[in-house]
Each structure stands twice: as structure tokens, then as C-alpha cells.
């Protein structure tokens, strides 16, 4: 982490109302820039020239392979609370990272000085590091082949660039959201807009020159109600998802709304933040007086706004090949989903469980045309009909699985970070039979229906997880009876997925996602989406999370 951090992380998290969530948020590095600068792109011819300088210098210095990423990373944060804007931050980070193989070992070096002489120097430095690393290497790097992409470009298919919308208008929109929440009974409200643009140019000695312009957006909100007399407070976070879309996500189109059996409104490809703020204030107030839920065994009905995070933790991370073989043992951990289990057709879930990895799904956070080592992205099965059939591998890991190509899920969070295996979008396929959440609930005798994501924690091999939520509803004899509080469910991953007795149809399918998935040492962040329809899991262990401090 460099010293040019311009975001006051503590204030930022507090402003977003996220401190309680303990969200992993490594530093955003970048120079603070004028908002107008966020609307521009770098000249492709210049990027190609710089890339060729590095490729030639590395090859001349003895590299058998070289790739160069010339990156420009733009971020804008608009942070508000109640009636005022707390901060507007625009950052820009430009530089180049050069990765090489020399003497069978990897080497990496990066710089923000984009003069040709310096790029060549950095390329030679990467080769020198690779040669030094080769002395301790027990086996040479084996790189799965990749076809030259030629000269190509790709852009996230956005309709409205968030950076084109004047800051004043965006701030005004958030302040209107806050006013709506306060008018509906919120004591406090924080709302934030993050917009991200990654302008990434990739070139390699395989002959690829790939120019990509990637956009992401997130509009988190947190509503708090306080009952001072009772010494009690409750929060309800917004039910939006971070998306790989433009500002059009905030259009709030009625056609993208789904009214759930609990009466809560959730959103597909278009979010009505103001409407959600009003409902959030009312539901937060209801949480103050909702009865505390009795712990025990219940059938769980999980809305996609909740299930996405359970998929992320119990499937997404568990099937990353670098974790499986031990590269992350010191920090994020390893995985229960071993190669042995893969080879022996491990029953990961019931026959209703089909989990797919995907780097191409429109609107998702992970969607790109090529990954950060120039591999064309794709969609592939991880669990089919309940059976573990594959893992997530990049070029230097493909051989471990006997694959002849990478899965295309390599990513670096900056030009200055070395690219490595990161989670693709991992999603639960909808059920084939027609079924709505209401149909599903009608069949549940004794259960709990959970909407929104809450606290989340899972062990270092991804067995034992515990998940909360935003909203909990008791189900009795096929009907939702009341809103309840203090609920968390505990899972053991294989038992959880094997207890899945149904998944609603595609009309209920929605994407959730995380902007700040952390992995690696030093940690890098990544954004990833997880789709699902509402799903039912029988006999789950529900704990009561209420405590008394005396």
C-alpha cells in the first residue's frame, strides 16, 4: 500500500455506515483529480508504443514470456449523511506493470513513470527479479497456451457513463434519498455513490493487444433508527447491488422491481434508491420492536440479496485453485474442496444445485472480454447436478487440473499489483420448474425467510459459515406471520448445499455482489457478482444473536 492514499478511510467507512459491518476495505490508491479528467481516456497508439517498448526490452533481456498492463484507474466517491455532502473524491492512478518469465520463474515490476526509457528499465528489472527468483524455484512455470487476440477493444455496455453526470446532480440525488428516509422516520441516514472506471491495456509476447474500458457502480445506503429512551438502535441497509453497469442502474424502472411475499420490494437491473430509503426507514423502525426469534432447526428460504454472499464464501472461494493447492495458506486459507474431491465426483450439493462460473454475464461485476493475462473469458460449470466438476484456474495453474487452457479469471486491482487468480462470478442457476418465492413459502411449515445481507464469517477451509441478514420473517404453515429479529444461520458447506430442496425459476433471478473482495498478501481487492433465484434449504441451524450487556 503506497503513501498516496487520498481517502480518509475511517471517515469514509463511518460516513457510509459500514464500520459496523467490518467490511474489508484495503486502501484506494490514486491521485486526486478534477471530475472532468474522469471522462477522458488515454490514446491507444501511445499505450501500444509503451507496451512494445516493454515487450522488446524484456525479450532482449532474456524473458521467454512478457506481458504488460498499462492501466488508468479512475474512481469517484460521493459521500453524504442526512442533509449534507460529507465528501466528494475523484482519484486517478496511472502506470504500467510488467510481468515476465525468465529462467522458468516469474518476475514483476511496476512504475508510474511512463517514459519509454523508464518502461524499458522496469522491464529489465522484472527480468532480473525473475532470474533471481529462479534460483529457489523447484519447478519451472508452466503456462497454458493462449491464442493471440490481435488488436481488439471492449467496453462495458453501459448506457450512461456515471462520470458524465454532473457531481451536483449526483449529490442532489443522494440528498433526496436521505430526505426521503428522514421523512419516513429514519434518525440517521448515510448514502454514497461509488463509480469506477478501469481503462486497461494489455499486451503480451503472444501477440495480443487488448484495450478494455470497464465500468462499475455502487450506491450503498444505511438507515439507522434510535430509540433513546429504550437505549436501542437498529439499522437497515439498502437492498441494491454493486453492478457492472452505468448510471442507468439508478433509473428505478418499475419493470425491474419485484415485490416479495414479505411486502419488501427488491430490484433487478434498475434500482429505485429513494423508494428503498423510505421502506428501509419503516423496516428499521419495525426492527426496534420485532420479537426475538427462537433458535432451533428451521427451513430457510433465502432471497438472492442474501444468498449471493453465502455462494461467494462457500463456493466462490472454496473453488479457487490457488487456495486449494496451498498458495493462500498463510492468510485467506486453503479449501475443503480438494483435488481429491474433484477427482472423486464429490457431492457438493443436492440435484437442484448447479453452480456456474462466469466472466461474461452482462451487468455483472466480473464481466470483461479478456482477463488480465489476455485470455478470452467464458462461462463454465463448477457444480453440475450437485457434483463438483471443476475449479477456477489461470494460465500457470491449468496444467494442475490437466487442462489445456486457462479459465480466464486472472485479475490485478492495479497496474502496480501482480495479477493472480481471482474469483469469477459464481452463480446458482435458477430452477427449471416454474416457481415464485410465494410458491416456495406456501410449502414451508416452519421456517424463516431472509432478505438482504448481514454479517458473514467462514473458516479458512470454507466449511463452517455463519450469515445474518437485513430482514427476517417467520414462516408458519406456508404463511409469513411476522418480522423477527436476532437471526443468524450457521452452515457446514456440503450439508448446506445438500439440504437445498428447490430453487425458484428464472423470473426471480437477480445478481448480488461485492465491491471489496480481499485476497493475497499484500491484499488486493476485486469486485464479483453472484446470481441466484430464491432457494430453500431444509433443517438449517438458526441461532439467536441477542445478548444482554447487563
Amino acid at each position, binding site marked *: 500500500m*503506497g*503513501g*498516496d*492514499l487520498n*481517502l*480518509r*478511510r*475511517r471517515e469514509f467507512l463511518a460516513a457510509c455506515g459500514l464500520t*459496523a459491518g*467490518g467490511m474489508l476495505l*484495503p*486502501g484506494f*490508491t490514486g*491521485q*486526486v483529480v478534477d471530475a472532468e479528467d474522469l471522462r477522458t481516456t488515454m490514446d491507444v497508439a501511445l499505450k501500444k508504443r509503451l507496451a512494445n517498448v516493454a515487450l522488446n526490452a524484456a525479450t532482449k533481456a532474456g524473458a521467454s514470456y512478457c506481458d504488460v498492463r498499462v492501466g488508468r484507474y479512475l474512481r469517484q466517491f460521493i459521500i453524504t449523511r442526512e442533509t*449534507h*455532502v*460529507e*465528501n466528494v473524491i475523484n482519484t486517478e492512478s496511472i502506470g504500467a506493470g510488467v510481468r515476465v518469465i525468465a529462467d522458468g520463474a516469474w518476475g514483476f515490476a511496476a512504475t*508510474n513513470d511512463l517514459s519509454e526509457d523508464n518502461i524499458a528499465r522496469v522491464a529489465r528489472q522484472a527480468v532480473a527479479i525473475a532470474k533471481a*527468483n529462479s534460483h529457489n*524455484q*523447484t519447478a519451472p512455470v508452466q503456462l497454458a497456451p493462449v491464442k493471440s487476440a490481435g488488436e481488439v477493444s471492449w467496453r462495458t455496455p453501459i448506457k450512461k457513463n456515471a462520470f458524465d453526470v454532473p*457531481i451536483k446532480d449526483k*449529490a442532489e440525488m443522494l440528498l433526496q434519498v436521505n430526505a426521503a428516509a428522514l421523512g419516513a422516520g429514519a434518525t*440517521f441516514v448515510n448514502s454514497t455513490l461509488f463509480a469506477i472506471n478501469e481503462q486497461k491495456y494489455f499486451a503480451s509476447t503472444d501477440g495480443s493487444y487488448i484495450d478494455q474500458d470497464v465500468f462499475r457502480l455502487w450506491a450503498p445506503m444505511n438507515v439507522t433508527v434510535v430509540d*433513546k429512551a*429504550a*437505549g436501542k*438502535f437498529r*439499522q437497515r441497509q439498502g437492498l441494491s447491488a454493486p453492478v457492472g453497469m452505468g448510471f442507468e442502474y439508478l433509473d428505478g424502472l418499475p419493470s425491474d422491481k419485484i415485490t416479495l411475499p414479505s411486502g419488501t420490494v427488491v430490484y433487478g437491473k434498475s434500482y429505485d434508491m429513494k423508494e428503498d430509503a423510505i421502506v428501509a426507514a419503516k423496516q428499521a423502525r419495525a426492527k426496534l420492536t420485532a420479537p426475538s426469534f427462537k433458535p432451533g432447526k428451521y427451513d430457510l428460504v433465502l432471497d438472492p440479496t442474501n444468498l449471493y454472499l453465502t455462494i461467494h464464501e462457500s463456493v466462490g472461494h472454496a473453488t479457487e485453485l490457488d487456495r486449494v493447492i*496451498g*498458495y493462500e*495458506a*498463510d*492468510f485467506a*486459507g486453503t479449501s*475443503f474442496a480438494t483435488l481429491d474431491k474433484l477427482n472423486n465426483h464429490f457431492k457438493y450439493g443436492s440435484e437442484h444445485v448447479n453452480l456456474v462460473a462466469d466472466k461474461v454475464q452482462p451487468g455483472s461485476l466480473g464481466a470483461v472480454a479478456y482477463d488480465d493475462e489476455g485470455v478470452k473469458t467464458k462461462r463454465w460449470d463448477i457444480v453440475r447436478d450437485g457434483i463438483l466438476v471443476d475449479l477456477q484456474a489461470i494460465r500457470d495453474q491449468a496444467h494442475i487440473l490437466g487442462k489445456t487452457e486457462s479459465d480466464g479469471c486472472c485479475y490485478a486491482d492495479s497496474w*502496480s499489483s*501482480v495479477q493472480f487468480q481471482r474469483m469469477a462470478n459464481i452463480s446458482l442457476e435458477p430452477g427449471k420448474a416454474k416457481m415464485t418465492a410465494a410458491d416456495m413459502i406456501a410449502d414451508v411449515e416452519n421456517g424463516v425467510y431472509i432478505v438482504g445481507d*448481514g*454479517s*458473514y*464469517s467462514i*473458516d*479458512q*477451509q470454507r466449511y*463452517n459459515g*455463519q450469515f*445474518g441478514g437485513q430482514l427476517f420473517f417467520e414462516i408458519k404453515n406456508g404463511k409469513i406471520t411476522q418480522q423477527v429479529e*436476532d437471526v443468524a444461520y*450457521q452452515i*457446514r458447506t456440503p450439508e448446506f448445499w445438500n439440504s437445498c430442496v428447490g430453487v425458484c425459476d428464472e423470473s426471480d433471478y437477480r445478481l448480488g455482489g461485492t465491491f471489496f473482495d480481499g485476497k493475497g498478501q*499484500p*491484499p488486493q481487492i476485486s469486485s464479483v457478482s453472484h446470481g441466484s433465484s430464491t432457494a430453500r434449504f431444509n433443517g438449517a441451524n438458526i*441461532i439467536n*444473536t441477542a*445478548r444482554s*450487556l*447487563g
Partner: protein
Amino acid sequence: MTIFTEDQARSIVSKVITLSKADECTATLTGSITGNARFALNNLTTAGIVENTSLEVEVAFGKKLGTATVNAFDDAALERTVRRAEELAHLAPENPEYLPVDKQTYVVTETFSSPTAAITPDYRAQVAADSIAACKAAKLTAAGFLEDAQGFEAFANSRGASGFQRSTVLDYSCTARTADGHGSGWVARNLQDSTSFNAGAEVRTAMRKAAASTDTKALEPGKYTVILEPAAVAGMLGPMINLFDARQADEGRSFLSKKGGGTKIGDQVFSPEVTLFSDPAYPNAAVLPWDDDYLPRSHLSLVENGKVMNLAYSPYWAQKMGKAAAARPGNLIMQGGDKSTADMVRDTERGILVTRLWYIRMVDPQTVLLTGLTRDGTFYIENGELKYPIKNFRFNESPVIMLNNVEELGRPVRLVSEGGGGGRRGGFFNGGSPLGQGVTVAPALKVRDFTFSSLSDAI
């Protein structure tokens, strides 16, 4: 150039102040060199160096703020950056909570060590090699990470406040696993001065725990007496200390809010054994003598003998509430005793020794209920001995309850603050370390009735 001398740095920030036409101007120059080496599967996997220098200029016209940064330091670049910050301030909405800081006097703190600043790529490779060699010889698999950094921060504002300070840090961790994957042990060290660091010796702790933790038995979940090693204690303290914020407490959204209004300052919230404070000059845990807002740090008592003494008041909130603003703490010290963890085990009839806690998350901010899991060395204690390794547990426990059940405190050690990180201005506790971490000094704790709610198969 990444690391400037004091004269060079002060001259740049002073020049920036004179260039500004705004009502207020603050210039901050920071630089760092960070090196790392990562290893896994008994191999060095990545190694690198990142150099970074940046000047941040923040200006204010009334309560309208603008910030710009640059990494070139010639006169033209400085001028351009000041003008850009001024333009942005004119376009910005008012921040009603902005308050400028007057000239201050800062205490002297020892945050720099020359040996740490002199660490070379060879040194890092040797740390990895020493860790790997020891593990390999014992048929264990090592995965670990060494990161070291040196940095400086210089600032000046138009009201006369200014400062310069250099700092260093070394952070090491290693996980040793048995070849069959049935045992795992961990060790971590965080130091400002690398002189005493010896990876080959440190790694023995991880190796011992790995070898001793194969063949676990499963205990029933429930309430147990636990000895939490310092890393586990720091993990429990971090999320709670984040809530020692006066504004949140006054607003009624904290466990430190009083029923009916107000805060719990002055209340006995914890056991009388519990004393927590911050001190920027604390030996071996020194941090920058100023906070993000350049308020001067000094000794700040948070909890004394179980009683809440102070909360953090931002300048804005202090003014609004008619209180004195205090700087944000840069470190957290929990007072301990003299006993080693081994001594504490010897004095325990029945209990569980916990090496570290993992994936700690807030379940309920109202009660600071946290969940997470034990990891990398969890043992059953009987009649003063480590009887056998046990399967890992998930806990659901509030540090507030935990600190009411303290039976014994061990010898404190320096650790990375949990929940910190993220650069120069990261975390509630931001010690200004060039790795962006705060520092916690925590003892091992013996605690009764610690709540484990389920078993984990993870190793």
C-alpha cells in the same frame, strides 16, 4: 527520490503554503519504500518493492474544501497543484463539519529504526529461506509473508502547524502445515526495529503448534474458560475500540450510549482488571504524535480499572458538545501482568488455549456481538498442561462481556491493530506506520465463560 530529508520535505510543504490564496491551506508530503517477500508450498512465490511519494494539498474557502495531489515537486508542479485544489474547492459543496487546526506542539515519539530502513531484497529472501528451511527439515510446509517499510510524513498548514517524522515497520507471519494437512500452526511478529527479529527462531512457534495439533478431538460447543493469546485478544478488541467514538455514543447508536441519552463516560462497563489507553510515545509501540487532522496526540485514558474514561471527540463534535477535542489515538495499549502464556496454562485447571481468531465480524453492533473462529493451534488444557489439540470452534461473543469475565492477564506484546490498514490515513487507530497500520499492545487473557457455538472441520 522517495525518501526526503527533513529539510527538503519541510521546504516543499512550506513553499506550498505560501503559494495558496485560500483561507486555509494544508500541505502533506509523504513517501515510503515498501518491500515484501511471499512464500508458499516451501517456495518463494513473489517478491517486490513499491516506491511512492506524494504531495497532498488541501485548501478551504470558508467551509468549501478542495484537495489535489501530485508526485512531482518542482515549483511549477507545486503551483499547478495548489491552483487545482483551489478550483476544486470553489466547485465543492460546503462541509459544515470542517474546522481548521491551529498551531500545535507535538511530543517526540520514536517511530524510526535505521536497521529496519536498511532491509534489502537479500534480507527478505533470507527470511523466506530460513522459514522454509526450518519447516522443510521438519517435514512441514511453510507459507508466509514478510513486509517491511520505511516512510516519512511532513506537513504544514497556513495557521503555523507543522511537523516531520520518519517511521519504520516490519511485519512477518508464517503458517506451518503438516504434510497430511491435519496440523497447522501460526506465528506473527510486528516490530518497529528489526534488530531482534530472527525468522528461523520465530518460525519454531508455528512449527511446534503444527506438529502438536494433528489428531484433534472434538469438544462440545459451549461456554469454556479460555486463554486467548495476544493475537486473539487484539482481534476481539479492535471492533469494540472502533466504537469508542463520542458522536456515535451521543447519537444513541453505540454500546456506549446511555439509556435515555448521553454516554457511558464514568460508568463501570468492564471488570476492574481492565485498563485501556493510548500513548503515542509508548515504548516499542510509538506512533506519530499527530492524528489525521493534525491534532496533537498525548496519553489518553479510555478505560481505567473497568471504568470508561474518555471517548474520541472529533474537532467538530467537540465544538458542538462543548468538549475538548482530543486527537484520534494511534495505538491501543491494554495493561497486562507479568505471566507468560505458559505460566497461565500452568495455573489453569481446565480450559482452552486459543492461538488466534479468524474472520471476526460484527453480528450485532448494539451489543458488539462478534463471531469468528479459532485457527492454527487450539488446545485443551487440563491440570496445568496442554492435554490434546482440539477441533476449531466458531465463537459468538461480545468483547464487552469478555472483558467482564477476565480472570488473569499475561505479559503484553506488540501486534498489528485489527481493523486498521488501508494506507496513511487508515483505520480508527492509525499510527502513521508506512504500512498504514495501527499498533496494539495486548496481553494474553484468561477469560471464563467464553461462548463457542459450533465446531469447524477446518485445519
